[in-house]
């Protein structure tokens, strides 16, 4: 009798574990668990699932990305898929040679979806083949190995995972050191399409349920404060950079002289190397900056500060990102010339001061204007009095933080940023800005297999992520995760559907 009880409990336990679903990363559990690749043949109807209000017929408002995509696809597309299959071939060979008696490759194929590579063409009905956490092949004519798991993304859109260029409360400062991979915030942001998040100055992956591959890269940037309100800090930065640059020059000269001396005579050199104080300890960061080893990260909004940073960047040849840049739109050409990247909060509110003699304050058009001046623009949700844009708030306020990162890109579109640039702002531009574009930010062979499959245009306000694949593994499956699986399970945007069961007024002992 006790055994029976235990079995019942076991069943209950297993049922409750379904919450974790595919995120339990156990090798032992994998072979006989075909969970994530249930074919989804009767997902939303084949036609574009964007129409939402009964009014049809306006051709202005959306699908710009599709159009601009299809404009240059025809010739480029085949090229790309050829390339892809070629590389695919190479990949296969290497794998079969090297890993003869290694553990089997982990293979995942995403088929049938509209593949938005972001850096290349959009491939309708394309396949993304993933091998051991990397993208192995992309194209229309990719051969899928028999042993590969398959996700049918027909009628869905396939994008690279999104990048949150700043985050808090998601991963620990160093993602590998203390992240709770079972925290409920992770499925929340995966459902928002985020697969990479910057935390402190490190980049981490949103690897729900596992720590494997959670750290993408450390020490991406060095934060500097260079504001007119802090003249002492400004002076210190200028002095530090100047000293470090002088040291590097002296050192180079010293090396040269030493080399010349060596050519001449055999005696021990008497030349002293320059004092390395300017690059020691805390000053080493200036050397890193000058050598392009780290990005200089500034927070600045005022036009004057932005121009000062642009001057500094040009003078010392720094790689610079500016967070905020509310008045960037007033000095966009200056920022564009200095090759500065900007992380914009499109919804930033700052009415400005009408009494000032120049344009000032924030505007929704900021991202669009900066983009038109050649400034790479990434986006992040704005803070408000009650919400922090880089957090995942679970108290009910929505649309203002990482839960809905794509909304911020949609705001940028509202302000004139082209849809394509808006999608790039969440993916490849963000990756380039942070110097992690060799790993993430687009769907390209060799990059990390961070892929999201959505039930519509990424920038549409009703679009849900159906699957999020991180490092080649399904980290979020909407149908399996209880969080959102009751919202439009059939993808029908015209219907509110049936209510899920409620805890209340359920009585003890009643079934769920």
């Amino acid at each position, binding site marked *: 009798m006790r055994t029976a009880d235990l079995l019942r409990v076991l069943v209950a*336990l297993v049922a409750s574990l379904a919450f974790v679903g595919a995120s339990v990363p156990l090798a032992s559990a994998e072979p006989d668990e075909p969970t994530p690749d249930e074919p989804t043949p009767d997902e939303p109807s084949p036609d574009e699932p964007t129409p939402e209000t009964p009014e049809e017929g306006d051709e202005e408002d959306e699908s710009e990305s599709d159009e601009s995509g299809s404009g240059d696809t025809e010739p480029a597309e085949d090229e790309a898929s050829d390339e892809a299959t070629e590389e695919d071939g190479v990949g296969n060979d290497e794998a079969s040679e090297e890993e003869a008696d290694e553990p089997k490759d982990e293979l995942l194929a995403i088929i049938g979806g509209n593949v938005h590579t972001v850096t290349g063409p959009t491939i309708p009905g394309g396949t993304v083949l993933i091998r051991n956490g990397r993208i192995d092949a992309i194209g229309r004519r990719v051969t899928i190995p028999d042993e590969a798991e398959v996700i049918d993304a027909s009628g869905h859109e396939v994008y690279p995972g999104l990048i949150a260029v700043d985050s808090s409360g998601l991963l*620990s400062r160093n993602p590998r050191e203390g992240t709770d991979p079972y925290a409920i915030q992770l499925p929340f942001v995966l459902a928002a399409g985020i697969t990479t998040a910057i935390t402190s100055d490190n980049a981490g992956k949103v690897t729900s349920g596992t720590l494997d591959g959670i750290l993408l890269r450390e020490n991406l940037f060095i934060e500097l404060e260079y504001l007119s309100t802090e003249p002492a800090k400004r002076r210190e930065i200028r002095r530090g950079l100047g000293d470090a640059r002088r040291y590097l020059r002296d050192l180079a000269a010293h090396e040269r002289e030493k080399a010349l001396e060596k050519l001449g005579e055999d005696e021990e050199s008497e030349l002293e190397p320059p004092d390395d104080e300017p690059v020691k300890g805390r000053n080493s960061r200036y050397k890193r900056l000058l050598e392009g080893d780290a990005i200089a990260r500034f927070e600045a909004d005022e036009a004057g500060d932005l121009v000062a940073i642009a001057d500094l960047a040009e003078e010392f040849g720094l790689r610079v990102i500016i967070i905020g840049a509310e008045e960037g739109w007033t000095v966009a050409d200056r920022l564009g010339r200095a090759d500065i990247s900007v992380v914009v909060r499109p919804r930033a509110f700052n009415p400005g001061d009408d009494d000032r003699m120049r344009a000032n304050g924030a505007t929704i058009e900021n991202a669009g204007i900066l983009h038109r001046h050649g400034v790479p623009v990434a986006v992040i949700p704005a803070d408000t009095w009650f919400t922090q844009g880089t957090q995942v708030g679970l108290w009910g306020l929505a649309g203002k933080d990482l839960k809905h990162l794509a909304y911020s890109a949609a705001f940028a579109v509202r302000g004139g940023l082209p849809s394509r640039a808006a999608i790039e702002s969440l993916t490849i531009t963000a990756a380039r800005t942070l110097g992690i574009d060799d790993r993430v930010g687009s769907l390209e062979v060799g990059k990390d297999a961070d892929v999201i499959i959505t039930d519509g245009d990424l920038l549409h306000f009703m679009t849900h992520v159906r699957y999020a694949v991180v490092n080649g593994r399904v980290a979020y499956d909407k149908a399996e995760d209880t969080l959102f699986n009751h919202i439009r399970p059939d993808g029908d945007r015209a219907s509110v559907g049936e209510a899920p069961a409620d805890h209340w007024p359920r009585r003890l002992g009643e079934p769920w």
Partner: protein
Amino acid sequence: MTRSVRTLFSGLVAACLFTTNAGAEYDPEIVVVKAGTIITASGDAIEGGEIIIEDGEITLVGLSLDSPKNAEVIDARDMTVMPGMILARTRLNLPFIRRSGVNGQFVARDEVYPDLTGFRPALESGYTAVAFVPPGTGITGRASVYRVMEIDGLRTLDADNYLRATFEDAARDKGAMVQALTKAQAEIDKIEEAREEWEKQKEAWDKKQAEAKKAAEKESENGGGDTPADEGDAPKGDEPKPEGARRRATEEPSGGETGDDSDPTNGGEKKDEGPGEFVPPEIDPSVKPLVDLILGEAEHPLIIEIGGASEMLHLRDAFEQVTIDAEPKHVLAMLSPSGDYSYQIESLASVAAGHEGDDGPLLMVSPAMYTERYTVERVNLLGELAFAGFDLVSVPSSLRGSSSQLEDVRQELGMLVREGLDHDEAIRSLTLHPARLLGIDTDFGSIEKGKTADLVFFNGDPLDPASSVQKVMIEGRIEWETE
């Protein structure tokens, strides 16, 4: 026996100074316990059985035994008798101390002092042995195991027991764990280097000796000259030179240039000295227990108090992050009532399935019904784990362990039994399994022939919340009973 009589005795016993096996000079003291139910922990329960105890040791357990005439009979036919319970982790009556980092050098023994009243809650709750642990977080040090006695307060059973580490919060504890493992491995490498160095020297010295011998032989053949014969004299030559060896090992740069020369530390007398026995360099005491564990030389395991599923992943990652010769033998302690351990139930189950040996793998737990994180779904996680093959060791979640918390352990176990945990398994989690964890299961933890007669008498099933401890017997003598 009344309290006053025992008090009279106490002086005598104290005079005996813990000499428990003084029985040789006297007639054996025989006690017979007639019990309603005997929960043996090692085997089936016996209804209406008897336990015969000679000199504090169980000699017979069974139904209607022939008891010796001169035996003292304890009539407990209305009671349930079980082995004395063993509390495998507590800081009962010890002060709160904040401490963190790598502190393997601490031993709980240094804090513990006999205090009758302070430890009585354990006795009153039916615990006859307790393991005190050092305080704080990180690698906290080693536990010490004591008997709980009414008269002496405590009596040492094993002063140097398991090593306690916390891993309740990865963000806080992972650094300490990684640091400790790195340090321990560095110490091991140091030993290894020193050994290699020593071997090299030994070889060179042996060679030199052989050459010298040869030369001497030649010389003697040639006739005359001093012989260094007594150098070969074993006892003298093998005399350890710890200082020299240690200094070599610790101070030498890894290149070890001096290695091939004869020992420079002994100056002029070098000629007479060999490298001697290998003396390992002194090991940093803060990681010494961990070094022993990695080398497989430790008697007791490392107990890691793990906070949740996330921490289980981080622990694994910490073990992978540091290249160590071998994973230290460890036992997990799942003590957080809100822990989301069930996210890792499959990996736990595979640990149990892959375990070799008759006994299951040990797992320290704090008995409670668990609630699935982010839901109100209650699960009998511990029932599952026992079912999967783990041998549970039940302790209260709190380190301070007040008497009510100690009582709660039994009652929570009772609840888990109601929800499907095996009753005998629950009993063993209080007796036999902790005894095994502490390495005292040859003498304690069950009612079996040959074991020490530590018994607890309940007025009902021990896991029934309505039952309470009536008597506690230690080594055949009633040490405590209700008024």
